[in-house]
């Protein structure tokens, strides 16, 4: 692996240069929280942030996206119009490693076999990821339990490590290499920077505890589907979609036709396994009729089904669901109670 470095004072000018050639998304403070937004100058960015309120998944998988549009006044023939998928190279700057890792996971869903989602994959392929490692992980972070870490490289093209006056930059892919080469704000890394980087990484990694034995959770879930456990664990769940909508890996969606006058569009919108309408059939039957089944689906999907299908859990340990849950239904506590659960049968 190759490393370069960039002085903190050069970041704004780097971004100013990047916005000329790329569509750049970066953390921007707004309404008392930070979200990823398209920026037009480096000065808009606030890199001094814990993590964004909404995960950056919405850059590739927006909450509402047009699949195609049509004109209902034309009774004859058939004319649907696909949105033009724009040729636009993009960069996400300052994304946290957990969120960068979530993109690897989303790729498995949207860019798998046998179907690929053109709306997601087009944007994804045209985007470079410049991540910012976490020197001071939150108390709600549990990325290390999920195979990630505050400086996980998965999904990133470049990874920035804050070493005080400078960032060292790990060059992780060819895309990253090109970026590092093209912009002279990136300098050859000094040996001192590299040793500082190693120390920073070690300190941050050791600050995240406790570690949850997710592998055992995955195995235990194999035999817990019919357990009374789910009645109890889901009892306080309000059934809102905060945890799913703010999750960087949740990707369920709905498809509806939205019509305005004679012009209609088929749109895809985020949907959530927490909602009764998610699985409610036109006949009135709902295979997941209550919170119990819906919360079970959430946990089983993340920590069992997804593992069976894609070889990894659908969670990156970012902690958003923990911070934002209105009833403090902490997924780490749930995982712990799965581990401690004695088979009642």
């Amino acid at each position, binding site marked *: 692996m190759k490393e370069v470095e960039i002085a903190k004072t050069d970041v704004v000018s780097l971004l100013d240069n990047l916005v000329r050639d790329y569509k750049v998304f970066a953390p921007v403070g707004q309404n008392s929280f930070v979200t990823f937004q398209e920026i037009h100058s480096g000065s808009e960015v606030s890199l001094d942030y814990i993590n964004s309120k909404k995960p950056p998944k919405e850059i590739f998988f927006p909450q509402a996206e047009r699949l195609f549009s049509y004109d209902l006044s034309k009774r004859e023939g*058939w004319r649907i119009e696909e949105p033009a998928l724009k040729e636009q190279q993009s960069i996400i700057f300052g994304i946290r490693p957990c969120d960068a890792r979530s993109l690897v996971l989303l790729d498995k869903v949207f860019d798998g076999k046998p*179907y690929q989602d053109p709306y997601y994959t087009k944007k994804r392929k045209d985007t470079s990821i410049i991540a910012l490692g976490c020197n001071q992980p939150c108390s709600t972070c549990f990325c290390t339990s999920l195979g990630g870490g505050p400086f996980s490289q998965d999904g990133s093209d470049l990874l920035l490590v804050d070493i005080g006056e400078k960032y060292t930059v790990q060059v992780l892919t060819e895309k990253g290499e090109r970026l590092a080469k093209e912009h002279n704000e990136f300098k050859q890394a000094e040996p001192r920077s590299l040793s500082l980087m190693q120390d920073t990484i070690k300190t941050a990694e050791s600050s995240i505890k406790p570690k949850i034995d997710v592998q055992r959770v995955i195995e235990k879930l194999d035999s817990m589907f019919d357990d009374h456990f789910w009645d109890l664990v889901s009892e306080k769940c309000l059934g809102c979609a905060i945890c799913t909508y703010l999750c960087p890996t949740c990707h*369920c969606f709905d498809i509806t036709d939205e019509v305005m006058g004679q012009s*209609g569009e088929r749109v*895809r919108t985020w949907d959530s396994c927490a909602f009764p309408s998610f699985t409610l*059939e*036109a*006949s009135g039957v709902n295979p997941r009729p209550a919170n119990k089944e819906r919360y079970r689906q959430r946990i089983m*999907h993340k920590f069992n089904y997804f593992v069976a299908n894609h070889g990894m859990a659908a969670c990156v340990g970012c902690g958003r669901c923990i911070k934002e849950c209105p009833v403090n239904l902490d997924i780490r506590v749930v995982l712990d109670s799965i581990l401690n659960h004695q088979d009642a049968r």
Partner: protein
Amino acid sequence: MKNPYLPSPMRVEKIVIETEDKNIKTFTVNFLNDEDEANFSYLPGQFAQLSVLGKGEAPFGIASSPTQPDGLQFTVNKAGVLTTALHNLEEGEIIGIRGPLGNSFPIEALQGKTTVIIGGGFAFTTLRSLVNYMLYPENRSRFGHMVVIYGARTPGMLLYKEELEKWKARTDIDVHLTVDKTDGNWQGKVGVVPSILKEIAPSPENAYAVVCGPPIMIKFTLPVLRDLGFPPERTVLSLEMKMKCGIGMCGRCNIGNQYVCKDGPIFTLAQLNELHGEY
């Protein structure tokens, strides 16, 4: 890369009211574009997403057999927004289609075997596709004897009545029709599908059972099949779940880690027994 969300246009050639309550219609549709038609090659058991622009999209099992020359057929029960919109269509109108989606009945495995086909209500659609596929002259010799047990609430609620008569006239297929409630003129059996199955008691030897029907019918049919000696590996079911994308992405139709739209809708009972059940 082909956009899997884009429907292709089809013209509604023919609409037939199937049942006495007029709530079930069969639509015969043809592709407007030859290219779309060429790309649409399917087997019995597969389904497709039908679109009515402005109303949305819903999945329907393909009721025709690929051996039929006269276009695709879908039999639609009027229940929700989209099915109502389909029922309001007139011949000549254009709808959209995405597909074929999902897997098919295990055609290879059924070769040389006796096939017991058990259906109830309007879920008989893909079974009809299977029967016609197997009866097709060029295919017939590949398959063994066929037994069809098909039930509906009343005689007037049976689908494909003319075709059923034709099947009955053949000797290489036993057709047992049953209704929950007779209307007086009814010549067939009276009783629910599971009890008729018990009465007929087809031999499990070298045989497959293929079941499709409302959940309640499936619930009571499976134990009968088990008692008759059909092993889970040779008991085949077609499942229905709410679907949106049809391509395994939108996340709602899973049973355990299997997506009914992509990995199904056809599963053997043995497969389902391995999965966590929410269906």
